[in-house]
């Protein structure tokens, strides 16, 4: 556990202990860690493996299977572009491409200033308002490519003002 500080080891151990009596505790543990730290690096997975007896390969498999979990720190604002069928036929690809161009990051990446993460999502169940985008849970319905620059600008200001 070379890279984890004592406080983190303590916190993660505590999270693991919370579910000690569950038969299948992994999803709950990972979910709590993701919420607590915003990501689950492999060092943390090794600690979870030690605590639960589940192999690191299996934990890594779960972390990389669900898009909710992340191996790397995410940005302050997480932009989720739905690329489900309905959104896709309504031009979602052009929307995500525009975000990608303005933020200079590919889907799945986080901007260098740590402000934005761009995620491509499978159907988020909002087909009636396609194409849809969510930013930290707030839903932006029926977006057009021309709406994108103003949104990015808004969050840049917000992020800068808060920082």
């Amino acid at each position, binding site marked *: 556990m070379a890279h984890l500080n004592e406080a983190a080891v303590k916190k993660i151990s505590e999270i693991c202990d919370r579910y000690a009596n569950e038969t299948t505790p992994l999803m709950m543990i990972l979910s709590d860690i993701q919420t607590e730290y915003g990501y689950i690096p*492999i060092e943390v997975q090794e600690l979870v493996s030690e605590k639960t007896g589940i192999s690191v390969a299996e934990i890594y498999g779960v972390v990389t299977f669900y898009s909710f979990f992340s191996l790397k720190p995410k940005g302050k604002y997480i932009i989720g572009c739905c690329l489900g069928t309905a959104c896709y036929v309504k031009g979602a690809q052009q929307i995500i491409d525009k975000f990608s161009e303005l933020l200079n990051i590919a889907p799945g990446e986080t901007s260098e200033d740590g402000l934005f993460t761009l995620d491509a999502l499978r159907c988020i169940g909002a087909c009636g308002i396609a194409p849809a985008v969510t930013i930290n849970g707030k839903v932006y319905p029926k977006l057009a490519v021309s709406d994108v620059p103003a949104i990015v600008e808004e969050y840049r200001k917000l992020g800068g003002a808060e920082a």
Partner: protein
Amino acid sequence: MANVNIKIEGQPYVVEEGLTILEAARICGYEIPSLCAFNHGECSRGSCRVCLVEATGARGLVAACVYPVAEGMEIRISSPKAAAARRTSVELLLSNHNKNCQQCSKNGNCELLHVAKLTGAREDMFEGEKTPVTVDSLTPSITRDTSKCVLCGRCVERCKNAHGLGILGFENRGFATIVAPAGNRSFADSPCILCGQCVSVCPTGALAEISEIAKIDKAMSEGKHVVVQTAPAVRAALGEEFGMKIGTAVTGKMVAALRRLGFNKVYDTNFAADLTIMEEATELLSRVKNGGKLPMITSCSPGWVNYAEYYYGDLLGHLSSCKSPHEMMGAILKSYYAERNGLDPKDIFVVSIMPCTAKKYEKERPQLQKDGIKDVDAVLTTRELGDLIKRSGINFAKLPDEEFDADLLGDYTGAGVIFGVTGGVMEAALRTAYFVLEGKEYKEIAFTAVRGFDGIREATVTMGGMDVKIAIAHGMKNAKPLLDDIRAGKSPYTFIEIMGCPGGCICGGGQPYVRPSLLPNEDPDILDTYKDKRAAALYSEDERQVIRQSHNNPQIKKLYDDFLGEPNSHKAHELLHTTYEAHTERYR
């Protein structure tokens, strides 16, 4: 269990309830093409879709490997619809497969190629993106190539079932899915014990051993004095490489083949197994007498030693300090044998034929070399020896039976032979320990209580006025509870034998593949019986030996008289014993 009436291809059968269609059909005499002919709970996902059949009562085609039979079910394997679906499934698998079959080490043993032929898969029916070729060849033991993986998951299950480890797992999702150690790291950077069980179940060339045949070619062309030694388990399985029935002992033909391959000397690792027993039994008795660390645990299996170093670093003091037999052989070849034959150790090249992939790593351990000279220079698996013999054009079946070279290190006993099966080292050690403590041979010779394939076996042997409690475990999953007891300070045992692979060396990761679909002349239950058949080959060789106790091996006696002094002497320690090192960081 209740029976059900079913029909297959219109013929009525009565089969046990609860069987899958695949299992039921096999009993009735139908082999449905499948990639899980190895199905022993090691792939039960039904995800490859190779075994699709028609079954009444089901919606659409069903995967025979997971769909259970039911009363009145009518099954059609040969219907055009089912046959076409199976063919498409295989064509889809092939569409994302690196088809360099000619260069593939599984050429001849590939189950994917086998089902491709069975189903009549056509060339390049589906073109598209392919999983990139990424090869992990950083360990001396095992390679992994993602471009040949069909994601069946057998390796994942085997690692869990045999060792409780789960080094390999599925990563990512959708098309990006791969099977790999966490983080797609190399085996070298994960706490893998290199036993090769994953290789033995992989249906394709995705997992294979690192070949060392080229090293032998090089040594021979450089004019080195090349000495070969064979582990006991090899003779019990090598014949399978040449189509012989499982359980055929081929000791004499193996020796004849090795001689024709140009090795200067052909020795049996059994000689060194006897030497191991002399050292190990002496070490055990001295630990008992002098209050040393007990229980003492055997150290012949490099897979087990790797496991101990990764997971039980605090218990390394319990491992016998004895080198494994082939390493002892190497050390003796490069000292005693070199001296007697006027050879420079640098000019001797020692090749070990082993049923094991972890031995390839073991020989590279810094603890097993001195001044840059390794005890052993190359390790070939039983399968690689098969390749080498085939390459040379030798007709194995027609070879005469020949004897191992008899000079200096040629004698061996029945005790050495049984090292290849779980419980064998224990039994061999008991035969000698009994003699030392009682001053006479054990009347029955064989300690049958320690035989069999139960995961953990224990016995109490009375000798020298003591009740000696012993235990045997094979596969790390079985070893774990014994080790946890030692850690907790409540182990009742004096001596424990641990072997890395389930079944011991006869089922090692370097042994010939047991693929029922490719072995039409074996019984349908061969996966349940092959261990017993290979073990029987070794036990019967033990029974045929005139000398069956290591301490009665005349050349071992001579080796001590002329060279080593006595067991555990200073010289013996220098040459025949080793040290271990805990991995404090599980991931490097």
